[in-house]
């Protein structure tokens, strides 16, 4: 498992370094304009960042858990959940059993937290716990445990804090530059040529202050998405049953209940983006999570085994021509990793027959038409139901990525 963490780490370190450089640059500008001394600003930025990181490091998990109103449970409160967490702990080779928390909320979500694998927690909403069968629960918990095992929580906490610092500082500095520069340009205009050079630096500074937070956010999202793919792959590897996670994700994505206690900074910790729009999977660059449909398709494409290599191949199948998501060095696994069968609980014929599903759909369509919904079909065969007050002329098909004309 170490090879995989190491190789992923190099890429993450590069991205984190870029963010750190941005943070320092902002600090330098800050100092330059307030004290006419860049080093002082650098120092201020570092101190703010350091203090915030310390807080995140030592009490980040307890803050997160209390913000989301999570309750700690023991083995006898929710035996199935506790058992599944223990099963995944064993499968991942984690040394210490993570604390198990439950959030009393109808929304379907779960997250992991803790700065290192020996002090970690897994939390799940009651809504999700009720809806999932054993295999699905295993998939979800496997995903969370792998966030712990791969030390994603620490990485995301550090980057989130850095992002926060960049956003706050850039906001203040850009205000200072815009309003402060008016007074100063008048007083320094006597300097002649020097004023013009200062003007250029000022403009560069303002542009940088506007771009930096956006860039930092994109980097943050990129790191987060990469970790999500890795966690999905690890979950498949631990459970040897990618279908479990796939069907859990399907259930989760079908729900539109928003988690009351989620907030933007903690979004990457969850198994699914708690701020996704109803029915739409958010587009690529501005999301902490890859589109759910895509994650499901990758997991379902893993027909031959449960190894990282297999996940990578499935990823490429879903993204023709694209690079893999897990670097080759990390694909070292124990040879061929077989899949297992569904557990007994899963095998029972719970699912409605295709015929019944179609009938239900027809009735639903009629009801929607009565309510002036338009039903349009995409080139890929997916039907889209458009509410009467839908403003745009076309809609993004989340299944094939094309656009469907509404009118």
């Amino acid at each position, binding site marked *: 498992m170490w090879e995989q963490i190491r190789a992923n780490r190099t890429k993450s370190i590069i991205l984190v370094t870029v963010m750190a450089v941005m943070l320092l640059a902002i600090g330098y500008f800050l100092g330059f304009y307030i004290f006419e001394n860049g080093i002082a600003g650098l120092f201020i930025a570092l101190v703010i960042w350091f203090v915030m990181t310390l807080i995140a490091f030592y009490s980040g998990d307890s803050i997160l858990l209390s913000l989301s109103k999570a309750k700690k449970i023991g083995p006898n409160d929710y*035996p*199935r959940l506790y*058992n*599944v967490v*223990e*099963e*995944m702990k*064993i*499968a*991942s*080779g984690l040394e210490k059993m993570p604390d198990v928390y439950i959030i009393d909320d109808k929304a379907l979500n779960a997250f992991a937290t803790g700065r290192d694998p020996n002090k970690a927690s897994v939390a799940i909403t009651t809504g999700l716990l009720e809806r999932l069968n*054993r295999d699905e629960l*295993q998939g979800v918990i496997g995903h969370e445990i792998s966030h712990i095992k791969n030390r994603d929580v620490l990485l995301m906490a550090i980057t989130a804090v850095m992002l926060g610092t960049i956003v706050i500082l850039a906001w203040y500095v850009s205000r200072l530059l815009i309003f402060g520069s008016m007074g100063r340009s008048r007083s320094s205009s006597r300097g002649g040529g020097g004023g013009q050079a200062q003007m250029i630096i000022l403009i560069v500074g303002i542009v940088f202050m506007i771009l930096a937070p956006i860039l930092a956010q994109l980097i943050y999202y990129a790191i987060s998405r990469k970790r999500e793919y890795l966690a999905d792959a690890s979950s498949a590897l*631990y459970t*040897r049953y990618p279908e479990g996670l796939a069907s859990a994700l399907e259930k989760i994505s079908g729900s539109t209940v928003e988690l009351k206690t989620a907030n933007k900074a903690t979004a990457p910790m969850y198994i699914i983006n708690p701020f996704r729009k109803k029915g739409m999977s958010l587009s690529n660059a501005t999301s902490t999570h890859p589109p759910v449909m895509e994650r499901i398709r990758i997991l379902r494409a893993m027909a031959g085994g449960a190894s990282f290599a297999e996940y990578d191949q499935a990823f490429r199948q879903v993204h023709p021509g694209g690079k893999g998501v897990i670097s080759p060095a990390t694909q070292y696994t*124990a*040879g061929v990793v077989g899949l297992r069968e569904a*557990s*007994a609980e899963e095998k029972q014929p719970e699912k409605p027959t295709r015929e019944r599903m179609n009938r239900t759909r027809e009735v639903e369509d009629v009801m929607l038409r009565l309510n002036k919904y338009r039903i349009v079909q995409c080139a890929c065969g997916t039907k889209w139901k458009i509410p009467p007050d839908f403003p745009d002329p076309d809609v993004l098909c989340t299944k094939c990525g094309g656009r469907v004309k509404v009118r």
Partner: protein
Amino acid sequence: MDYWVWIIIGIVVILLIIIVGLYNGLVGLRNQVKNAWAQIDVQLKRRFDLIPNLMETVKGYMKHERETMEAVTNARNLAQQASGAGAGERGKAEGLLGAALGRLLAVAENYPDLKANQNFLALQEELTSTENKISFSRQYYNDSVLRFNNKIQMVPSNIVAGMFNFQLGEFFEVEVPVEREAPKVSFT
């Protein structure tokens, strides 16, 4: 002359560092294998402990399933006897026990009264989970053994492994000769 002495000392030191690194890596993996084995042991013991409870609960309901119940008890005794043996021997005995238990739980499906018993439901969850934990700890153990064995056999760590006489780890395969057989259901 001095010049050469220093180069030779340098090479020896570098070699020593490499050997120490490889040796520590091997020991780390060996400990991981041992630890993983202990994990399996814990779960197998847990299964031993659960069985008498299960038998006690089931006894009142399944009067006509003497054979199935006896098979579980016998398999448990056999597995307990084999608990000191190596991975291969043990895998066989545990496989039999797992199969016998599976059959008992399958037969239990035919007893609605039993399935309504809270005690039985709790035990069933515990047994299912223990069964899973056994297979997951086995999975992790076998992965660890594979990594350890690879290190022992691959260049350059094989040289160090030979010097310090590291032994190959043994895989834990659960052999189940009759597992795929459909459970016998009798309505006598």
